[in-house]
């Protein structure tokens, strides 16, 4: 569904990513883990089109989309969330979601279609799905940190994407909500979406992922079933330590 | 050959004036992210302060001496105006960049009108010492001496400002404060005072530019600062928004292009050519303009 083929990225003389190949199939969830600075977000950026790789290609449905803009890719069904929430701060949570729906649907810029052609029920439903029901009228900038994370996820889901890239969706989410969000992401995967998720909460990754990819210094250290990967000594050494 | 030399030297002199006008602007923009539309008013304030000082001083004093005193007074006035504007108008709006720009817009409108109300719309002649009006013969060209003065002042200013930013803690604090003022405070540093200093400095530099420009023009008028401001803006943009070195390079480039175009192309193409230069830079290297937002 979505994949990287031999992707490399150099910036300012440093090789951030080196020959990374990873494909996520429809209905599959791949967890991407690795130490801080390993290049996980960079990979997500390249897959979503926010940055251009210096070598290799990105494919979507088998087609080479390396030269397509982030906008184009989003329109073809690729959604993502950001590690540090990137929201429309001056708009309400509801409007944020509505824009996300609109961006993915047809004629997103039409001056002839009312913004409310996105039904309010759909907006409310999406917010409720991330346990944010009733906040549709709150300005995004006034949400608490966790609220922002959840909104970020709702926006990614709003597009009814076929492929979803999540960059640390659980960071800062209170322990209470982690389970709920985990379940949502699982449902999304089960509905046939290809999901790649960067996450440091190991229990989330282990509970959800069909496969886990470990990035280390910009290269893939290991890819495989969760238990295989966690058993890998190199992974324990580089990443897990004695986890809390 | 002699004409070419003349055109080049006067072009450099013009560039020096542009740099003087733009450096204060670039300083404040680069460090505080405030595009100061009142910069023209600061220049006008400096020019009028100097003019008033020179007319008040006894004419028994030599013109040169009166000018020196006037420059000192203008620098003080510029610094005070800068500080007052920062403390009273800019500081309370520090979370709102656009509002800060807007306040300076309002200020620039009001200031020009105020000067016009007090001293009238007509230009007033300023006294100039012999040095500033004379010429020297160089390879057959009659080169006005004042251009060398502007060049010297511009170079000295450039060096001084660069050193301030590169080698002082003040420079560091300012750069951090521009990005995230709250966090700098949360690190225990008094940002406000730093910003006030920057504005005062910007005001003083603007006033200096104002005095020198009024010497150059031979008169002061309410709109004088504003007329120079457009060029200062263009120079700051071409120079990469807030980079001092870029500003210097751009200032001299704009001065030279304008002069050369005015002589070698059709008369009057020079001013348009500056706008053209901006468009060219923009089309060729748009990324260079996004520049120092940080």
């Amino acid at each position: 569904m979505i994949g990287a083929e031999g992707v490399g990225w150099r910036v300012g003389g440093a090789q951030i990513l080196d020959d990374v190949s990873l494909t996520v199939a429809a209905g599959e969830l791949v967890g991407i883990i690795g130490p801080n600075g390993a290049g996980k977000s960079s990979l997500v950026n390249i897959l979503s089109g926010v940055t251009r790789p210096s070598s290799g290609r990105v494919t979507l449905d088998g087609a080479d989309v390396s030269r397509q803009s982030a906008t184009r890719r989003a329109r073809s069904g690729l959604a993502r969330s950001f590690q540090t929430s990137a929201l429309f701060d001056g708009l309400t949570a509801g409007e944020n979601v509505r824009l996300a729906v609109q961006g993915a649907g047809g004629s997103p810029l039409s001056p002839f279609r009312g913004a409310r052609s996105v039904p309010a029920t759909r907006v409310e439903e999406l917010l409720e799905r991330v346990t944010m029901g009733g906040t549709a009228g709150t300005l995004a900038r006034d949400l608490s940190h966790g609220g922002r994370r959840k909104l970020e996820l709702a926006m990614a889901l709003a597009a009814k994407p076929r492929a979803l890239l999540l960059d640390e969706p659980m960071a800062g989410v209170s322990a209470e909500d982690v389970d709920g969000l985990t379940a949502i992401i699982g449902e999304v995967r089960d509905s046939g979406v290809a999901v790649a998720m960067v996450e440091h909460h190991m229990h989330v990754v282990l509970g959800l992922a069909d496969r886990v990819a470990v990035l280390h210094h910009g290269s893939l250290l290991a890819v495989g079933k969760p238990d295989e990967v966690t058993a890998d000594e190199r992974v324990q050494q580089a990443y897990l330590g004695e986890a809390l | 050959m002699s004409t070419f030399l003349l055109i080049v030297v006067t072009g450099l002199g013009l560039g020096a004036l542009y740099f003087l006008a733009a450096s204060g602007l670039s300083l404040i923009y680069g460090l505080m992210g405030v595009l100061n539309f009142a910069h023209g008013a600061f220049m006008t304030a400096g020019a009028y302060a100097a003019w008033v000082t020179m007319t008040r001083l006894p004419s028994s004093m030599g013109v040169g001496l009166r000018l020196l005193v006037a420059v000192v007074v203008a620098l003080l006035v510029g610094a005070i105006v800068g500080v007052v504007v920062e403390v009273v108008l800019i500081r309370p709006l520090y979370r709102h960049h656009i509002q800060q720009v807007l306040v300076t817009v309002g200020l620039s409108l009001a200031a020009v009108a105020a000067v016009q109300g007090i001293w009238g719309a007509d230009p007033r002649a300023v006294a100039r010492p012999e040095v500033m009006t004379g010429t020297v013969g160089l390879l057959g060209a009659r080169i006005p001496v004042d251009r060398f003065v502007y060049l010297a002042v511009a170079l000295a200013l450039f060096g001084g400002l660069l050193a301030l930013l590169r080698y002082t803690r003040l420079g560091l604090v300012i750069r951090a404060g521009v990005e995230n003022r709250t966090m700098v405070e949360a690190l225990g540093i008094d940002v406000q005072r730093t910003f006030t200093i920057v504005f005062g400095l910007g005001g003083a530099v603007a006033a200096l530019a104002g005095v020198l420009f009024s010497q150059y023009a031979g008169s002061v008028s309410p709109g004088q600062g504003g007329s120079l401001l457009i060029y200062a803006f263009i120079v700051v943009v071409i120079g990469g928004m807030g980079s001092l070195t870029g500003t210097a390079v751009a200032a001299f480039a704009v001065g030279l292009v304008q002069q050369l175009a005015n002589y070698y192309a059709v008369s009057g193409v020079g001013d348009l050519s500056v706008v053209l230069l901006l468009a060219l830079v923009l089309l060729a290297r748009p990324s260079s303009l996004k520049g120092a937002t940080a």
Partner: protein
Amino acid sequence: MSSVLVLDDVHVRYGGSHVLQGVSFEVPATGVTALLGRNGVGKTTTLKAVLGLAPRTGSVLLRERDIVREPTHRIVAGGIGYVPEDREVFGGLTVEENLRLVGPAEGADAAIVRELFPDLVQRRTQRAGTLSGGQQQMVALARVLLRENDLLLVDEPTKGLAPKLVTEVADVLARVAESTPVLLVEQNLPLVRRIADTVVVLDAGRVVHRGDARELVEDQALTQELLGVSMRREGAA
């Protein structure tokens, strides 16, 4: 046992919303005090209220001195170190410049930083904005460790850190707490159990529980009630 920080009936209002509704608690002069609660209950706001970054009323005593009326920079200079929730490093400055802002990188504290975050030393000249999320978190931590403090306010320091680093950060905090009291906001209960001595739990802008850290974390019914979780599952990770 004396308290380094005492909050008494602190209120914070943002426009129409009353975010803190009379928060009172004390931070003992030693060890780690954990401030817990669900998303949006006002944990960050509490820290900001102490620092003067949020509009507050009530009384905040730092070493018996009321600081409610002081400007932020003076409060901080008076001995509080702050690691904000969103890292807030200066993206346009290099790593070194970020650290130099606080003071010269020398002395014993500098050694801790070097030992703890060797990566940063290596990336001295990189612009902090291009650091990875975890690397930025390290800069934010290192920034406060470079100076003597009476109290550290640390807001979710392990958010986005790799598991291995989480352990390391926990160790650092524990070590720091030996000499400097720490008020820590954290979602990671195992970590709280490991390093915190006391806990304060907030809900809807009020303190709903105060007590010993271990007692709370191990009382599954109580954590379930106050925080909506218990530690069984995390323990498995």
